[in-house]
């Protein structure tokens, strides 16, 4: 530890801390542009100049390490003059276009010019202009505004792991760009907009839409992947306009994947805003009372075992519990949440969660990825693995179709034979055994199909064999794609004793099928005589097959609880009202239960949330994730020795369109056209 004095305040900081970090610890704000706490130090903007006693001139505090007994002054006439000088130089080539700049109101340069800027310019010469770059459909550039802090260059090289941006030319001609025009291929490119301190990189679809001071911000949870990224939902007058990440060190740090950020425009398209009833083969608009009575009439007299319910990927726990309670009260045990048919064993919680936790990745020293492409399935989690990898001493093994995960991996085959070899021993099995904290990450989508149960058991067995399952460390992880999946499993939304699973409910297995946001299975396989109720927010596969459509709320329009892939319970709050006649899903189910004569025992959200805690005590712990070791090595059902020689399929061929919201989003469609289609065409 080092002791130093900053503006008369004595602070003690760890050795190697920079003066800027020490100032923050002392509660003193130092202006900066290029310094970012999660990126390497560049020290090129010079805005963070401070005075250090005995130093002959001001020093850049972000790149200056503390020393014992150092005396730092951050607010002297000399410091202020130095910062004013720096600011004047930064503004020499910066255009005076704040009124038409999207960064206006949340711009570091604007804010700091308020404190350190001159009232007029002394620069009479011509300002330089830089050609804008086309970085693809997500990030808009106005390169003349760039102050060359190189945060974006460092972000793409260090966090995103795809060095695509750089500073070409030099001096007055220096430009940030890709040199060869190309769209950024990272799934985290939206974060460039956040880290850019000026308006050089802005949100392309959001251009000229709103000003930050007009927006209401509501805390939410991203549901477009299973990471459970904390987000801030920004809306104006009930219109959700953009989504920003919120800091949560244990989950997403401060990043947000592109799908979560940019599919926001999908929330306004293809929405179900009215109840519909199919009469003589055609869907006809209906009122709520009419629709609910119609459903009640259809259900009346149908035996419980001929009624089934399937929940989708984006559904909150409250709605799933309401549907479960409703179906159980109707005598049905035909429940399923695994639309893809993945052989998830719901009998024990650690069989289906990411037990190491996302923050736990920082501690791991060996990771084996099986049948998963975390770069697409959970980009933010992948960035965490990359961060761990950059820190050194991490070995990553990968079984699956070759892919660039943004960090080096040891390829161990493309399919199940690779896993069989590891179970029999081999070089990487030794690496895992020698590791102090090994992790096995299994993609939930790899459990689909014939080998699913065997794969789950085999992965568990491997984890047990290499010592990843210990009372002090749980190294078995299932990586989900669907935000609602772990919550559904926690609520036991799986076939009850004697109940049918999804496959059993298809092809006429039930007479009444209630789809709660379930669109990700082949709806053509639903029996022709099955009466289908689709409750959800987008007109997609489920609604197309429905006999009755009950319009529900999307995740930004309801207060709901989501459980991420780790098993972390988080609550998202409503930022807007559902469109038209649409209502929050649990209210629809509650209203229907009354019409059907079996009223659910909760009339408001707190009562339902209390019921949630009663259904599974894990819902009592919001936000926190207790980490458990593993003392019971008994594996999931399935024969670990029954593995075939099948290869893994690509777990997510198109990152940009995976659910009803992203499929409705024009931005995501453009991304698909830019990133996915050309590659698949080239492959043919």
């Amino acid at each position, binding site marked *: 530890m080092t002791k130093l004095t900053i503006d008369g305040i004595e602070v003690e900081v760890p050795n190697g801390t920079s003066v800027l970090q020490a100032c923050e610890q002392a509660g003193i704000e130092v202006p900066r542009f290029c310094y970012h706490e999660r990126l390497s130090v560049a020290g090129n903007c010079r805005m963070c100049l401070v005075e250090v006693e005995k130093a002959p001139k001001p020093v850049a505090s972000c790149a200056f390490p503390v020393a014992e007994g150092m005396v730092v002054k951050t607010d002297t006439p000399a410091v202020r003059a130095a910062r004013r000088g720096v600011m004047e130089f930064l503004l020499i080539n910066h255009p005076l276009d704040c009124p038409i700049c999207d960064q206006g109101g949340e711009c570091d340069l604007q804010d700091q010019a308020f404190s350190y800027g001159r009232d007029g310019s002394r620069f009479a010469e011509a300002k330089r202009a830089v050609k804008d770059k086309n970085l693809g459909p997500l990030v808009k550039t106005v390169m003349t505004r760039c102050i060359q802090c190189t945060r974006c260059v460092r972000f793409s090289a260090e966090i995103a792991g*795809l060095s695509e*941006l*750089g500073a*070409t030319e030099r001096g007055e001609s220096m430009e940030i760009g890709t040199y060869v025009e190309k769209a950024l291929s990272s799934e985290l490119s939206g974060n460039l907009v956040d880290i850019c301190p000026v308006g050089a990189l802005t949100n392309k679809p959001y251009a000229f839409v709103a000003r930050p001071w007009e927006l209401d911000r509501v805390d939410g949870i991203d549901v477009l992947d299973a990471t459970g990224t904390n987000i801030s939902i920004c809306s104006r007058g009930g219109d959700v306009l953009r989504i920003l990440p919120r800091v949560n060190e244990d989950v997403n740090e401060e990043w947000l994947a592109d799908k979560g950020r940019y599919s926001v425009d999908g929330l306004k398209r293809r929405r179900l805003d009215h109840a519909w009833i199919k009469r003589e083969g055609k869907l006809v608009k209906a009122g709520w009372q009419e629709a609910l009575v119609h459903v009640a009439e259809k259900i009346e007299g149908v035996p419980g075992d001929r009624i089934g319910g399937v929940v989708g990927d984006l559904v909150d726990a409250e709605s799933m519990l309401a549907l479960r309670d409703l179906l159980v009260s109707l005598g049905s045990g035909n429940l399923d949440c695994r639309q893809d048919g993945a052989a998830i064993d719901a009998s024990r919680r650690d069989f289906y969660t990411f037990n190491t936790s996302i923050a736990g990745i920082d501690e791991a020293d060996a990771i084996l990825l099986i049948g998963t492409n975390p770069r697409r399935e959970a980009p933010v989690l992948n960035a965490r693995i990359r961060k761990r990898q950059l820190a050194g001493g991490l070995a990553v093994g990968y079984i699956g179709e070759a892919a660039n995960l943004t960090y080096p991996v040891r390829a161990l085959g493309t399919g199940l034979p690779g896993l069989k070899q590891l179970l029999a021993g081999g070089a990487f099995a030794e690496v895992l055994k020698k590791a102090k904290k090994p992790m096995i990450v299994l993609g939930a989508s790899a459990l689909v199909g014939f080998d699913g149960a065997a794969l789950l058991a085999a992965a568990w067995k491997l984890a047990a064999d290499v010592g990843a399952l210990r009372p002090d460390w749980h190294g078995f992880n299932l990586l989900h794609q669907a935000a609602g999946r772990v919550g559904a499993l926690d609520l036991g939304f799986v076939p009850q004793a004697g109940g049918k699973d999804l496959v059993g409910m298809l092809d006429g297995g039930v007479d009444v099928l209630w789809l709660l946001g379930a669109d990700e299975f082949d709806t053509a396989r639903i029996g022709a005589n099955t009466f289908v109720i689709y409750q959800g927010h987008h007109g997609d596969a489920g609604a197309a097959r429905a006999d009755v459509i009950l319009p529900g709320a999307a995740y930004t329009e309801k207060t709901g609880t989501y459980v991420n892939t780790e098993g972390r319970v988080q609550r998202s709050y409503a930022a807007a009202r559902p469109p038209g006649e649409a209502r929050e899903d649990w209210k629809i189910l509650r209203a229907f239960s009354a019409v059907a004569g079996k009223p659910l025992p909760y009339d408001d959200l707190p009562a339902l949330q209390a019921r949630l805690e009663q259904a599974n005590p894990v819902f009592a712990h919001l936000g926190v994730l207790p980490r458990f070791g593993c003392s019971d090595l008994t594996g999931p059902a399935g024969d670990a020795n029954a593995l075939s020689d099948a290869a893994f399929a690509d777990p997510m061929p198109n990152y940009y369109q995976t659910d009803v919201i992203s499929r409705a989003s024009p931005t995501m469609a453009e991304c698909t056209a830019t990133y996915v289609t050309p590659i698949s065409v080239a492959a043919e």
Partner: protein
Amino acid sequence: MADVMSKSGTEPAEFVFDAESEALIAVILAKYPAERKASGTLPLLDVAQRQMARLTGSAWVPRVAMDVIAARLDVAAIRVYEVATFYFMYNTKPVGTYHLQICTTTPCWLRGSDEVVAACKKHTGIKHFGETSEDGMFTMTEVECLGACVNAPILQINDDFYEDVDGASTESLLAALRRGEKPKAGSVIGRQTSAPEGGPNTLLDTPSFQAGE
């Protein structure tokens, strides 16, 4: 930059190091530890530029060559683009067979670099810096100090310095190049390196320095 290249249509479809370059690369890369081979970026760019001069008569580094270097050194392509565009000595656009690099920094300018520029323009028909003559023989570039101010003004043609030039000597130099000759590099007025013009003028009383010895 990318636009300039694609418009000029000169970007070759591919670039492969030839045997002569490969021999140089083997020597260069042997200097660096394997995990630090990115240090070879600068010399490899030079090798590529010289190979282009040897094979096409134009010393420049096409983008495909930068990609080849990036792949060879296991670095992202943009890292090589950054280096290649940072240094003035790498030409990212084709240049003429003779690259006339005229220093116009203060000492050369005081000693008459304007005359040299005018002579180059007159002889080659080039109107502005950065342009190539119509016959493709000459490209004229304005450069900053070449570090040979004692012999100002300097005209660097490809790798060679021609020193103490003026308008007339520049024109005769270019005429010689056009004839296919290779004029001797160094001072065009016959100075021995940067020794005083017209012979020694100090230490004349020291016997060993006297003329003729």
